[in-house]
């Protein structure tokens, strides 16, 4: 399964919280949905707290053709 975007994850979590608070689902299914929400929340949290991504620079290689190349970040002063 493709990873949900941050925004979609947030929406999904909200949706599940709504379902759980309504309390219509059987216990077992509720726990499954709960697990799903916690998993999504953990993935989001990992993005907020996790490792930094490398910065790329955009290189034009032709007419409307581009490549990404790692950017050497300037040293901190």
């Amino acid at each position, binding site marked *: 399964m493709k990873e949900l*975007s*941050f*925004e979609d994850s*947030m929406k999904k*979590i*909200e949706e*599940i*919280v709504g379902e*759980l*608070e309504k*309390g219509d689902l059987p*216990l*077992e299914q*509720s*726990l499954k949905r*709960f*697990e799903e*929400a*916690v998993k999504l*929340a*953990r993935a*989001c*949290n*990992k*993005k*907020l*707290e*996790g*490792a*930094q*991504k490398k*910065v*790329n*620079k*955009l290189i*034009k290689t032709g007419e*409307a053709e*581009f490549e*990404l190349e790692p*950017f050497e*970040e*300037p040293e*901190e*002063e």
Partner: protein
Amino acid sequence: MHSPTHLPDGETALSVSEITRRIKELIESAFGYVHVVGEVSNAKLHTSGHVYFTLKDEHTQIRCVMFKSSAAKIDFAVEDGMKVYARGQLTVYDRYGTYQIIVRDLVDAGKGDLQMAFNELKKRLEKEGLFAPERKQPLPAFPQRVGIVTSPTGAAVRDIIRTARKIYPAVDLVLYPVNVQGEGAKGDIAGAIADFNAYGEIDVMIVGRGGGSIEDLWAFNEEVVARAIAASEIPVVSAVGHETDFTISDFVADVRVPTPTAAPTLILADYVEARTQLGLSVRQATRAVTGMIDRHKRFIDGLRTRYGLRSMSDRLAAQIKDIEEAARRVERVMKAVIETEARCLVEAAGRLERFASARVDAERGRLATLAGRVDALSPLSTLKRGYSVVTRGQTGEVVRTYEQIDAGEELRLVLSRGGAVLRVENVEEVNAYERIELRRLDEED
């Protein structure tokens, strides 16, 4: 110390400090920030780095000082005879009772044509509707890929990267390195904006540079850059110079931020919000699920209570076998439910992790207590409480009523530990008095 002195004739004399304080207050609040044009004279560069000079016209003059930090920002030497625009604060120097302008920004009036060009372009583009609020595109929610059009070596790119990562480390930053000043800068910047649109795989872009003189920032006042920003289908955040610098780019862009650092702060604001929201959602979800488990447990508790009570009355009616059955039944029902719940809870405990482990521990404890109560209802416990089972010697059938028993017969008594063989001497129906006694016991139970 500086309070007014009362003279014998009733007049009041102010101290020098007091009158100076009042003048200072009056002048500084009346003028504040001023913009003055004049000719430089007596220009002196002090060893401290501060620049002292006088601004004059045909009739009068005013003292000016430009402190080192401000002087460092101008890219020309302040020389006598030069016509300048000075912006700064009018202050009173109380030590000498003089007033002066503390100049923050100095512009060579010879270059005043830049300002005119700026005003002309601004008026023209505004008339064309390029600054209209309805042209502004909203910034995307939760952007993942952010484009940056700036110099690869300046402080701006470093500030943007650092700030963006602080807010959302997983952000994908794509830099389009350009010259932001000098010949070719305007073409570079306009081209980069167009190229980012052709590339397409970014959600929003930051276009800007760090602070500098009006000439340094000039590329962002060029028409070709303004048009590229206006044509961009990807939202553009203009981040040029300092708080006080306004460029044409700022007016055309979808959003203007005062400094490059402020750009990621604004663009990634949703992620700041998300931090709080995530914690809140998980707490809400946990509360909902534990509430659900609580409700199930109350339901089981209800079952236990009902079955438990019936067992009591059955017992008093001497229906030992029924008690056994009822107890077993309750036990069976409850154990099944408890096992299911305990399994769910164990799973849930794994799922909850640090969010709710304390809560689950408490739930497990309550389940254990519940299991203990089930044990209490088992036949063995009943025996331990002092009740016994009587069976007939030959058949082993449980004796429930006196009709089953014959005088002289041998019966077996089952106690919690061990038992006995009994011989029946006499069989009789329980009399009315004893019935009442039993009923009372029943109620007490």
